[in-house]
């Protein structure tokens, strides 16, 4: 691996560090009673309201339709994912230091697999929240479930919910971009010798 390729994969690892500080996803909701909107940011290790008390408001609203309350302490992913990201950073540093091409390819493949798994998990989390409703909920609309959209906007009763990537996702994309660039450099460096 060239110095440049090694630097790129190290960069791909290090650029994941902002994920501890910058949310990668945002869910926003507006309703007639919420003209300014409420919502939450999702980071690899945290869920926060757009404003200080939004999570409490979301939980209060959700209890009418029997959704479980969202408490970050009760979401195991917020404890697990930081370790996975740490592992990916460490792995990237190892790839960069050893210059092992095979490891580099594994890193990229692992990144893709983990991203897909993350999206699947997020979908499942949303499905569970939206479908697994308390049967004693005061508001029951036959056939209605409240799964937020994976990505995009959806009208759920009086609430218009939007789910979109947030700035943290840009670092994920950059990381993936640097890693594939590193792999591509190796490939084109290898070609003339063939």
């Amino acid at each position, binding site marked *: 691996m060239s110095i440049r390729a090694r630097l790129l994969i190290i960069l791909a690892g290090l650029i994941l560090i902002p994920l501890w500080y910058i949310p990668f996803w945002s869910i926003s909701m507006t309703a007639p009673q919420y003209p300014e909107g409420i919502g939450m940011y999702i980071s690899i290790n945290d869920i926060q309201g757009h404003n200080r008390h939004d999570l*409490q408001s979301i939980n209060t609203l959700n209890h009418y339709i029997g959704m479980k309350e969202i408490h970050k302490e009760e979401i195991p992913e917020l404890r697990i994912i930081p370790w996975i990201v740490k592992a990916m950073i460490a792995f990237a540093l190892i790839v960069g230091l050893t210059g092992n091409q095979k490891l580099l390819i594994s890193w990229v493949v692992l990144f893709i697999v983990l991203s897909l798994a993350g999206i699947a998990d997020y979908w499942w989390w949303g499905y569970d929240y939206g479908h697994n409703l308390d049967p004693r909920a005061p508001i029951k609309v036959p056939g209605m479930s409240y799964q937020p959209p994976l990505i995009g906007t959806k009208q759920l009763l009086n609430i218009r919910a939007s789910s979109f990537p947030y700035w943290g996702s840009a670092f994920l994309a950059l990381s993936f971009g640097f890693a594939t660039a590193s792999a591509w450099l190796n490939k084109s460096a290898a070609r003339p010798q063939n």
Partner: protein
Amino acid sequence: MTKLLTLKNIVVVTAVAVGAALLLTGCPSGQGNLLDRGDAAQKTYVAPGEYDEFYAFFSGGYSGQLSVWGLPSGRMFKNIPVFSQDPETGYGYYEESKPLLETSYGFIPWDDSHHPHLSQTEGVADGRWIFINANNTPRIARIDLEVFETVEVLELPNTGGNHASSFVTTNTEYIVGATRFSIPYETDLDVPIDSYSENFNGAFSLIKIDENTGEMSLDFQIIVPPYNYDLARPGKGPSADWIFFTTYNTEEAHTLLEINASAYDKDYVAALNWRKAAEYVRDGRATMIDAEYYHNYYDKSQGMAVSQIKDQVLLLDPKDAPGILYFMPTPKSPHGVDVDPTGEYLVAGGKLATVIPVHSFSRMIDAIENERFIDEVDGIPVLDYDATIVGEVENPGLGPLHTEFDGNGYAYTSVYISSEIVKWSLETFEVVDRIDAYYSIGHLMIPGGDTVNPYGKYMVGLTKTAKDRYLPTGPKQNHPAQLYDISGDRMQLLLDFPTIGEPHYAQAISRDKIMPNARRIYELSDNNNPYAIKRVADARVEREGDVVRVYMANIRSHFRPDNIEGIKLGDTVYFHLTNLEQEWDVVHGFAIKGMNTAEVLLAPGQTKTLKWTPTRTGIYPFYCTAFCSALHQEMQGYVRVSAADSDVELTWRTGDL
């Protein structure tokens, strides 16, 4: 086709009719007609969802409250209880607020609030606090403009009607109070009324304001002759160290003042150098005298209001403090004394005078330096009228009262008897315009019109009787207000709307000074009420002998606990209610059958306590009085009250069927 023709016909006929009307009435010019009215609607139209340009605060008069309005729309936003109990919010009924209404005369659940005044920085209203006086049992209150609630009330001793109040100096160093009715000093002095001149005195009160917290303290009082002190205004710019007061009844009458206090041609405007007076007090020239009064205050994080009982006050006698106080003869029983934006002109509203006298501050200083004194009263020099007067506005109408300024060289004076506002030039002292008021105007107010920087755009007239102006509402009707456009050469009436209570004076301020600081919730984490609960899980009921304390959570859409048994006759029950919501404007209420005080409303994050002494056994439903949510009607519960000797155990629950 026929339809179109018909429509067209209608348009033509209407146009002809309007044309004919114009011909008959003459072309509308200047004031009052078709074109003007259309224009007025446009000028006051604030589209749904848009914001008014100004916050206005109208005193409530005998309602003891302060109402909040938008200008130019004339929409009322809120009525803030200040000196009066308010069954709507529970103010003055719930335990936390009750100390605010304590006085040396006991718990006083009402008053007559006259003159709101916004705190100032460098002579301009800053929107931090608004102060208002109680005229009956003499007090001053402070309203915090982050939360729009009364947070402090200070009683004034040696004062018989705190009317010349609550005006702030240009950097809110002091608020002034003064007695309208002179009374004997000291507590409970029992003397014959006709020993008035001998035993009665006036008092000026200088109330110091903490520049960070706004907290008031009575720094000192000044003993003055037994006149009636009517209104006051601190100076500004060159006159910022001075406060001007009007006097009437310099005749010292104590009966039938209507006649006896109207005898003299001139009374006085008193000029007090407050900075010099404060220095004398610091130098030990004042004496400490006995005086009982209450200082009640509340902190912003919604703990409990507390009452502090004071028993002494520093009193400064002008005889011991030369150079602090002068009298300027002024015709005749003057009501208002108002200082123009430059601080040079002192305009008195001689309510029985035929002119509006204007004193000059710089001429007053010259007269003092050159000792142009014509008399002396109790050590207070009386200045020569000709030495201080700089103009007399002729033909001002009958009964001029109060004056505000537009910052463009004009003054506007309310005139009670002839029911009009006159606009006059500060250069020529001549009336340049006049407009009717509906009817019998008291104060008028221009946003910033009492500061160094008026917004000369609108003017509000506060009138005393509505008569035929609105749909009739019985023999006693609400007091009106009128909004005028004063941006042009001629005043234009824009709006005429009923108010609440009896607004005496008003204040207005640009929304930019208040909107950004207006709070949306009380942070639960800052709630330091000892009876607050911060989590639903802390809801509980505790018995301490005959006292039962219910720590109750309010959150959409239930109370916790909502079934309580084991209360007995003879118990005193305290409902400590906390609204656990942390969302703007999600308000809960509480009321229980047979409650002989009031309901309460709880803002998000707020804790309030209602005391309840059941008098009959039985089942008492309670419920949320605020339409808080879709399941508001379900927000209810029951209390069971048993006989004194019953052995029903104290239990409580929520949700377990």
